[in-house]
């Protein structure tokens, strides 16, 4: 077995040193009838080539987004990641290291985390960021819990235009801790009045920008109103590229900003692993969940980095910890940071502009079709159209023509008849004019027959 270095001679010699006759003597503490006598009923070991062939077959049974005109977003976005990012994250020194518990021999991971936290704080317009959560949705759940700790209140008000799976995650994470979660209805093209929902017991209001349907909102006034009543504003961004074009949540007065960082440095990967971004104000750092990297000096006075503020965390605080998170999104944060460093301010803004201009182009083409209504006044790289037909059926018909046309809202809102003709379309820098034209001409056919 290619991964197991011990030879039978080695095993014999080692057993001898231990003073055991055979290997099962080392399993003496296992109750008799629980120690298996034979092998488990699964295939025997395979050569590298055989395993690879198996996975080639699995891979061939799916349609990669890159093979077809592709327009699905809704919380995960297809962007181009420079080759050097994937090379770097596969360096063994990064890939095969553990959490940086021994800072003297983990400065690579730690310095990259410090750079990550700096970038996330800058992009979100906040004072500080942590070293990541699992993904955007769990970061959102953690933000709700943190807001309750900060305000010592229990009621969580959620915009109906937050990604519906994020809403579900917040509900699940707060299910058994006496929280009250109030969720507005989704409104594709009307503004919500969230102030109607708040009361004295409200800890926070959670909104998304750009929202699930692609709309952009200025939350500055909402933030002011909430702050007067000591309620926190949590802003979620599932497409972090957007913040290269639009005002940051921090500039609008957000208290906690969470996001999905997958767009930068990380592939679609069928939903994971992704990277949860979490940023807030300096005054709340001791209530933050997750690991945090901080700057310090070594015994010679040289600058270095360590994991810090660990008295918030499970390994020290146990049941009083701010979160139970341990393993986080490590390597995905590294991919994020390297990609963001390659972009820099200039590249990040340019990438955002490119996404927006492609989306505008596509929206204009769609708007010109009969049977298509563009529902957004504002958007970044994603918008919602209302078709004259059931959107899920249209998508199925277009799949037959090798086009993946977008997300029918009904997939996530199966019981909401008002939304059944709505299709969310994402356009990124990877969408070519040919992709757009193919989709337009086939959609025209499908809608007209």
């Amino acid at each position, binding site marked *: *077995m290619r*991964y197991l270095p011990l030879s039978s001679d080695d095993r014999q010699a*080692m057993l001898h040193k231990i*003073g055991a006759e055979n*290997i099962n003597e080392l*399993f003496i503490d296992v109750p008799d009838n*629980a120690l298996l006598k034979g092998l*488990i009923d699964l295939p025997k070991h395979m050569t*590298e080539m055989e*395993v690879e062939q198996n996975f080639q077959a699995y*891979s061939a049974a*799916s349609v990669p987004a890159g093979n077809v005109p592709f327009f*699905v977003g809704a919380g*995960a976005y297809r962007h181009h990641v*420079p080759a050097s990012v994937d090379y770097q994250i596969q360096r063994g*020194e*990064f*890939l*095969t290291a553990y959490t940086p518990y021994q*800072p*003297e*021999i983990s400065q690579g*991971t730690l*310095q*990259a985390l410090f750079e990550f936290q700096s970038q996330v*704080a*800058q992009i979100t317009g906040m004072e500080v960021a942590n*070293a990541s959560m699992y993904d*955007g*949705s769990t970061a959102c759940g953690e933000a709700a819990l943190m807001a309750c700790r900060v305000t010592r209140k229990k009621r969580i008000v959620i915009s109906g235009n937050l990604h519906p799976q994020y809403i579900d995650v917040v509900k*699940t994470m707060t299910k058994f801790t006496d929280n009250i979660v109030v969720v507005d209805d989704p409104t594709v093209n009307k503004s919500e009045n969230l102030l109607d929902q708040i009361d004295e017991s409200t800890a926070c209001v959670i909104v998304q920008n750009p929202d699930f349907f692609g709309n952009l909102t200025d939350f500055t006034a909402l933030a002011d109103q909430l702050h007067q009543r000591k309620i926190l504003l949590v802003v979620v961004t599932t497409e972090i590229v957007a913040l290269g074009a639009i005002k940051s949540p921090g500039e609008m007065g957000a208290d906690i900003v969470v996001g999905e960082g997958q767009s930068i440095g990380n592939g679609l*990967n*069928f*939903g*994971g*692993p992704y990277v949860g971004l979490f940023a807030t104000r300096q005054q709340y750092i001791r209530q933050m969940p997750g690991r945090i990297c901080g700057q*310090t000096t070594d*015994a*010679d006075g*040289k600058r270095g980095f360590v994991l810090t*503020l660990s008295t918030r965390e499970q390994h020290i*605080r146990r*049941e009083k910890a701010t979160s*139970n998170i341990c*393993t*986080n999104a*490590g390597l*995905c944060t*590294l991919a994020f940071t390297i990609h963001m*460093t390659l*972009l820099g*301010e*200039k590249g990040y803004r340019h990438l955002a502009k490119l996404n*927006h201009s492609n989306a505008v*182009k596509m929206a204009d083409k769609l708007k010109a079709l009969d049977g298509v209504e563009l529902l957004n*006044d*504002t958007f970044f790289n994603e918008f919602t159209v209302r078709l004259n037909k059931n959107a899920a059926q249209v998508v199925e018909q277009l*799949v037959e023509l090798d086009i*993946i046309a977008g997300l029918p809202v009904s997939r996530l809102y*199966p019981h909401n008849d008002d939304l059944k003709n709505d299709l969310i379309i994402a356009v990124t820098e990877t969408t070519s004019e040919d992709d757009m034209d193919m989709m337009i001409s086939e959609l025209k056919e499908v809608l007209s027959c």
Partner: protein
Amino acid sequence: MLNKQGRPTGNEAAANAGNTGFQSYTGAKGLDQPELLIYEIGNTNHTGVDLPEVEDFETRLGGLERDQEIGLAGLSEPEAMRHYTRLSRKNYAIDMGLYPLGSCTMKHNPRLNEKVARFAGLSDIHPLQPISTVQGALDVIDTLAHWLKTLTGMPAVTMSPKAGAHGELCGLMAIRAALAAKGDERSIVLTPESAHGTNPATAALCGYKVKAIPATTEGRVDLEAMKEALGPDVAAIMVTNPNTCGLFEREILEMADAVHAVGGYFYCDGANFNAIVGKVRPGDLGVDAMHINLHKTFSTPHGGGGPGAGPVVLSEALAPFAPIPYVLAGDDAFDIVEHDVEGGQSFGRMTAFHGQMGMFTRALAYMMSHGSDGLARVAEDSVLNANYVLASLKDVMSASFDGPCMHEALFDDRFLKDTGVSTLDFAKAMIDEGYHPMTMYFPLVVHGAMLIEPTESESKQSVDQFIGMMRHLVKAAKDGELERFSGAPYNAPLKRLDETAAARDPILRWQAPE
């Protein structure tokens, strides 16, 4: 001695220079090069990507344009490559040497797994693209689920959880939902003192009060104390098996029976599954729920802290309460169920989308490579290596408990008594010897814990060298070579770091100098 060109062949001169302690102009020590932050190398005008031009167009941003500078530093591609390559060289890693972090299972990460995880049909697919276009991915999830259920002897598995702690939350939520369905609200979860910190933290997140159960002098859960604490208000016990002292819980069946007798459930922390994979099935031990850290037992890379994956196997009693989504294998196609069915009892959704696909591919490739025969050998060799370490060090270090151990060996600091060397100092001296230290000060049930997990990836030669190094350091400590320990590490990229200062006055991001 001179060679043909008349230059010295030895490195006496260089060694002497080192001893005189002169400082290099750059601060470098040869290949050990200091590295600035990106903000000190690049600036907002640098970039390492070329993007197509954008023609003028009318924006739809509704007046929300970001007009303030963000301050992001950019680097050209060669600068970025050099920056991150230099940083990488300041890390210890499995690829460089034995990584004996107990409880973390730092085993070899096969590169085949990295390769197959990047196949386009498994990586370049969107979680919400039509289900008919992701059949290969669903097949991977379904196949991995089959392996996990078979290896654990459990009837159901949920793939959503993103890491071990997330799996714990999943298991406890299923338990709480199952009890609620019976109208049986309970308030207490029992965890042994030796439990990992995530166990009590998870129980609290699930709204439970935590009660700690003491350990016996043999390093195992005190069954009598547990029985005493059990009652109608106990929702579950959370027991790690093999436990965090590296021992198999001999009375595990009795514990399971005892908790079941009061109507509670048995949550098993499966972080240490590596020791028994292919040899013992938790389903035969009375377990109701257990997470499996794919980033431990099944070798998905730790990546400097993540990502991981923590699928949870469930008993018949808990399966109906599993979170959504889940994959259904139909007669001729796979489906993915994203909403609870009418009258369903799922406790909800733990994450957007469908879990850690990238980790599933890697873990399945690892399992297929080993097969049922190789996986049983993984358990055997990991246990053999750990017992070999225990047998080879117990005459000079203080083993906390009698063996045999499972896949990790626990020592405490009694052997350092009166030497003036602490567990921390000892660990830092290991760094100078070219090793990553073992897990320190965990579990909490012994003083100055040192938990050593060599894993099955180490050859005998490698383990022998590690043992030799440890014996050498023990001797140095007992011989009173204090300085070697108190100032260690001397040869790492940095000397000991001031963690107290970091926490007192936190600097958590780069700030432009005034």
